[in-house]
């Protein structure tokens, strides 16, 4: 098994119409290696292990540790950390859109802009925290924060993403609230997202992958803690569920109340167009609120040496739960979006199962788009199998 695990997806179809999907999800429970460490060691080592979405992972771990230790929350430092998590959501969305979406519509990727984007994380950390060290128990905000420099950096980041992703039409995108307005926005510009959305409309794939798996509702940490006291979290984190159901955990959860998305989902459910638009709305919405950010993306709860934290990560809600005994980690579980979404009965399975294409090539393309729209980070192997109709033979 590769270090990051393996996801095997087998899609049985009949002339391009999906019939059955099996997902074999084998991912390592890497967090187990943190058992036996002190909270300080945990917070030093966890970012080495989870360097992709590292800020969200490190922030969830820090919140859980503090909750377990009964330490107070430093409001200003947490506000800065949430800015770093938002920054990371932007980075993860934009660099994958820049590479993957351009591939789907045969455009060259703007790799110069994407390379510049990847450098912002270090720049923000250095500006906000002493030694750029943001997610340990002893991290300290810079004593004299240079707000002008911070504003300049935010403006620089906004300009970069507006230019490379929105074709300098971010403000127009932010004002969209109906499908007709989205149609105008698509037809009036040649930016990468407009090209991809136009392609989806052109192929009549707006509702591709629409399915009945719903977005996980907000659950507060105290309730999760209570529910999980009776649960084998090792098993649960492999195949998470809530109230005996599978749920979706993606950016769609966070954007579904946006007027544009509400309008689109009225027509296309949670199909391809809705998912792609949700990711774009998330990018646009974060950029719009970076300066006026108020802490909201993380929550936590602690009780008798157990700490639980929820953080909004790029691919969906991330949950960490740890138990401390005698100053060391006794149990650690991470419930990540991948396990919710690639659950055998989850949104990827159900979405793929509902794909209908005219050719096998189109089915393959739809499947690739749908999986990418749900989680572009996972490495998976997709096998399409033509299913021959079974013929009943009567004696």
């Amino acid at each position, binding site marked *: 098994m590769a*270090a990051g695990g393996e996801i095997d997806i087998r899609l049985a179809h009949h002339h391009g119409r999906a019939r059955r999907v099996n997902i074999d999800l084998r991912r390592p429970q890497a967090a187990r290696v943190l058992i036996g460490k002190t909270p300080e060691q945990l917070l030093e080592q966890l970012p*080495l292990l989870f*360097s992709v*979405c590292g800020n969200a992972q490190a922030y969830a771990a820090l919140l859980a540790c503090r909750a377990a230790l009964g330490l107070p929350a430093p409001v200003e430092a947490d506000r800065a950390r949430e800015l770093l998590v938002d920054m990371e959501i932007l980075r993860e969305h934009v660099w994958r859109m820049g*590479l993957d979406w351009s591939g789907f519509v045969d455009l060259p990727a703007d790799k110069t802009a994407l390379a510049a984007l990847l450098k912002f994380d270090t720049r923000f950390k250095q500006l906000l925290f002493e030694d750029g060290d943001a997610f340990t128990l002893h991290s300290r905000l810079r004593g004299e924060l240079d707000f002008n420099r911070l504003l300049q950096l935010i403006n620089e980041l906004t300009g970069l993403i507006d230019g490379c992703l929105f074709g300098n039409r971010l403000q127009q995108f932010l004002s969209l609230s109906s499908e007709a307005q989205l149609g105008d926005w698509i037809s009036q510009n040649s930016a990468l997202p407009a090209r991809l959305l136009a392609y989806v409309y052109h192929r009549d794939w707006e509702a591709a992958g629409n399915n009945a798996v719903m977005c996980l509702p907000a659950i507060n940490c105290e309730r999760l803690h209570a529910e999980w006291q009776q649960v084998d979290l090792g098993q649960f984190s492999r195949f998470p569920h809530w109230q005996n159901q599978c749920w979706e955990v993606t950016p769609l959860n966070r954007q579904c109340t946006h007027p544009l998305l509400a309008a689109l989902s009225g027509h296309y459910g949670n199909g391809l167009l809705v998912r792609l638009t949700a990711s774009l709305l998330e990018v646009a919405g974060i950029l719009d609120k970076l300066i006026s950010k108020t802490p909201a993306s993380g929550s936590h709860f602690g009780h008798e040496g157990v700490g639980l934290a929820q953080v909004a990560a790029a691919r969906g809600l991330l949950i960490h739960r740890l138990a401390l005994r005698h100053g060391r980690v006794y149990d650690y579980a991470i419930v990540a979006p991948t396990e919710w979404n690639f659950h055998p009965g989850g949104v990827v399975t159900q979405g793929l199962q509902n794909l209908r294409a005219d050719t096998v090539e189109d089915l393959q393309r739809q499947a690739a788009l749908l999986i990418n729209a749900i989680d572009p980070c996972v490495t998976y192997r997709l096998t399409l199998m033509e299913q021959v109709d079974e013929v009943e033979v009567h004696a």
Partner: protein
Amino acid sequence: MCLALPAQITKLHPDTGMATASVDGVKVEVSLALVDDVQVGDYVLVHVGYALNKIDEDEAIKTLALFAEAGLMSTP
């Protein structure tokens, strides 16, 4: 969530912007399009075929040791 192993650059291919790197003893081809100034011997974090950033040798060794401790590498 995804994991990214440190990879050590073993050969540069300047014409294509690619490099050969060693990840857990396995040779892989990596795009250097998103990072600057990478040399043979450097460690980079690789995700979906792209080097995302350079990391210093100490951090790479610590990271590899942690992956080995977690049983996520074939070569401890």
